[in-house]
């Protein structure tokens, strides 16, 4: 314990320098802005701002990058709530309840809750990180392809929990999403699937342009006559940004669960913040008494995914720092940055580069405080975006989306994909087919398939070998209960009620 405090004070001593603090603040600020821009998530933010760290002290460089990283995690929720365009994939679930809240005139409250949930999730995770990082890192590796496959099935099963009024429409969207995930070259045999000779489709359809189209463009072209975001100056008062007692009581358990789940999922290499927020939302919906009201604008629906994605972003640093195994795109780029600064992440990082490692941990505490300050003080400013007249706001958002989609691959093809899915999204909205299951299926479809194929090769082609591994079996059973538990209990109830 004493050693821990010594280490921590070593870390904070680096942060005592006001210039370093300024970098940390600047990182969080840049992160929030980048995260809020459609299509630009943490990985793009870090990649773009990476050159700034050239020539910096390693400790300072990594503090700046870490600030961008969790700033962007929060920033994604701002546009998700205000204009139903998630800034990045991890904020997709935040839009589900955040936007309806904004429509009800509670945008300020939703964004306040997003900030609190993010900060609570982040801070608890930092403490867990500090205490357990080296130990957990080893256990995370127990997850191999079979276990990931089971985890992805669990994710897909959670679609049942987010389909709203009409499960069949939700599943329809999910199956279209799974189909889209099939497009591209087969991972194992390299066979072309549904590419029709178009070289742009060889590596498949990325879900970011799809999400920007389905959520962003569809929102813009849908007639919003019936869905006007009301804005009332009163709600911008500081007091109103703070959830009241009852709301805290409703949300805290979800924040707690979301944090635990997010931290755990984030720690697994390859799972990450997006999947963490998906799972957390559907878990919240399952366990909440008001489960069927999710999607209509509940603060819990914002709290659960937001706490999970920030917790996951901290959790994802564990395998990267302690094992040199990056768990997500963003942490992979951070690892590259660290190596460029002359630091090799790995088992001996905490011994050889104690100052860097501990000042990073210290900066996470401070960074979370900055995040809260920015989130709360900046809120009135962000919300004012809604006061802009719809035609002006729409055209600016559209410009952001199109530039963002071009910047993904420097290619007009992704812009075309974005617009195409914008049109699809319009019809889905009109037909009341939910878009979230489709995005989830695109993300999970590829991962489910590639992990299953790898697991099958490792198990010499035996599916029994894949699903009977202890961890995967347990996860698969949970998935089965999630998918079919509801209907079956209803059936039993019906039978015995009469």
């Amino acid at each position, binding site marked *: 314990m004493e050693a821990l405090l010594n280490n921590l004070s070593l870390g904070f001593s680096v942060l005592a320098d006001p210039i370093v603090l300024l970098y940390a603040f600047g990182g969080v600020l840049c992160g929030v*802005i980048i995260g809020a*821009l459609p299509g630009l998530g943490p990985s*793009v933010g870090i*990649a*773009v701002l*990476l*050159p700034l760290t050239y020539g910096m002290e390693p400790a300072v460089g990594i503090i700046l990058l870490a600030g961008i990283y969790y700033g962007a995690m929060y920033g994604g929720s701002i546009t998700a709530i205000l204009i139903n365009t998630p800034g990045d994939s991890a904020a997709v679930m935040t839009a589900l309840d955040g936007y309806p809240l904004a429509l009800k005139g509670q945008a300020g409250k939703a964004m306040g809750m997003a900030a609190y949930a993010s900060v609570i999730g982040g801070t608890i995770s930092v403490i867990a990180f500090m205490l357990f990082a080296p130990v957990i890192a080893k256990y995370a*590796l*127990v997850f*191999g*392809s079979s276990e990931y496959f089971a985890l992805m099935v669990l994710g897909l099963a959670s679609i049942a929990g987010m389909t709203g009024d009409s499960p069949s429409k939700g599943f329809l969207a999910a199956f279209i999403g799974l189909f889209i995930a099939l497009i591209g*070259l*087969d*991972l*194992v*045999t*390299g066979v*072309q699937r549904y590419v029709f*000779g178009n*070289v*742009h*489709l*060889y*590596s498949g359809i990325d879900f970011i342009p799809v999400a920007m189209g389905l959520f962003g463009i569809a929102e813009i072209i849908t007639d919003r006559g019936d869905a006007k975001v009301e804005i009332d100056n009163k709600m911008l008062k500081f007091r109103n940004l703070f959830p009241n007692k009852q709301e805290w009581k409703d949300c805290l358990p979800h924040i707690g669960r979301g944090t635990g789940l997010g931290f755990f999922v984030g720690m697994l*290499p*390859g799972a990450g913040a997006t999947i963490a927020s998906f799972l957390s939302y559907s878990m919240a919906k399952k366990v909440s008494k008001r489960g069927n009201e999710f999607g209509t604008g509940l603060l819990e629906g914002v709290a659960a995914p937001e706490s999970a994605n920030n917790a996951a972003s901290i959790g994802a640093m564990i395998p990267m720092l302690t*094992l*040199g*195994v*990056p768990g997500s795109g963003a942490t*992979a*780029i951070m690892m*590259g940055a660290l190596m460029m600064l002359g630091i*090799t992440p*790995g*088992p*001996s990082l905490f011994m050889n580069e104690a100052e860097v490692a501990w000042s990073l941990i210290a900066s996470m505490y401070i960074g979370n405080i900055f995040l809260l300050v920015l989130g709360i003080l900046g809120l009135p400013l962000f919300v*004012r*975006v809604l*006061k*802009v*007249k719809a035609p*002006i*706001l729409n055209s*600016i958002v559209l*410009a*952001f989306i199109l*530039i*963002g989609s*071009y*910047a993904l*691959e*420097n*290619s007009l*093809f992704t812009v075309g994909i974005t617009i195409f899915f914008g049109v699809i999204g319009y019809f889905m909205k009109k037909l009341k087919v939910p878009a979230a299951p489709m995005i989830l299926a695109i993300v999970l479809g590829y991962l489910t398939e*590639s992990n299953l*194929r*790898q697991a099958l*090769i*490792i198990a010499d082609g035996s599916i029994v070998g894949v699903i009977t591994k202890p961890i995967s079996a347990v996860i698969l059973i949970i998935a089965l209960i999630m998918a079919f538990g509801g209907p079956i209990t209803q059936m039993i109830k019906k039978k015995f009620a009469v």
Partner: protein
Amino acid sequence: MNKKMLRVLALMLVAMVVLAGCSPAESPAEEPAVETPAVEEPAVEEVVGWVPTENVEFIIPFSAGGGSDVFARKIIEIISKNEMAPVNFIATNKPGGSGVVGYTYMNGKGANDYIMATTSSSFYSQPITGNSPLSITDDFAFVAHLAKDPNLFAAKQDLGLNTLEEVIEYAKANPGALKFGGTANASDDTILMYMINELAGVEMTYVPYDSGGDILAAILGGHIDVCAISPSEGGEHLAAGTLIPLAVSAEERVSILPDVPTFLESGYDITHQQSRGVVMNAGTSQEVLDYYSDLFQQVSETEEWKTFLKENVMGDVFYNNEEYVEFNTDLTAKYVKFMDMIARNQ
């Protein structure tokens, strides 16, 4: 009041455009180093033949931050810093389809003296496996070859086997039991495994992963037994003994792993490395190719380049235009042979 908001938003839009413009994906190197083309003063150096008069578009068929990207940007940096050329080289990332998107983009510009692209293993594997509309021999002109990436064959710790010999003996005794992790389904990693299978008379099973990071996680967790990984990716795990290095696929030992033998030393005629060079479109005239070939030779002779190769564990292998054409013929034949073997096994 609305006006004010409008101004704020417009400002954000401008910031966004600037941001996109500054992204490493697009950023042109620097201000023009020399503004007037050197053609105007040919007296100083003995300028013979062709000299570029327009900026060169340097295509990186992969995203920013990857191996090809770092390689290309270093070349450009050296050229511009040392004012080796009278024009600028502008790095353009065109990722997608394992490089195919970038090469087809270049191909669309026809014979053009101002566009070129970097090569890596997928330059060979995609056309050969039928996943590219282009032909290696008919659609490209070979400018210069600059580096080779060695591959490392490594085993997991709890396999309890410490040398190449022991692993091969084990593999002989247990056909199909060893699971070999590598990147993608028809890559240099795949070729390495099939070479070992063929030349050592063993049978290992290939498991394709998305990236080196995934392979590392799988082997450290004990889910696969052996793998191909870049010596730098293995990093600390090699030093810590959690990953056992068996042999490197280069002709000589690599500097960061002085104790790890080559396959050749261990008595197996296996060398296979990722080749990194620069290509242009077919139909580019010989004098243009000569100019760029000389230019890249100058780059390869700088101290900076040598340091860069060492840091990134790449082999210093320069071939000029003529040597590259010859080398390419051999390398293509090798890829054809092994891609065919891979396809038959799937």
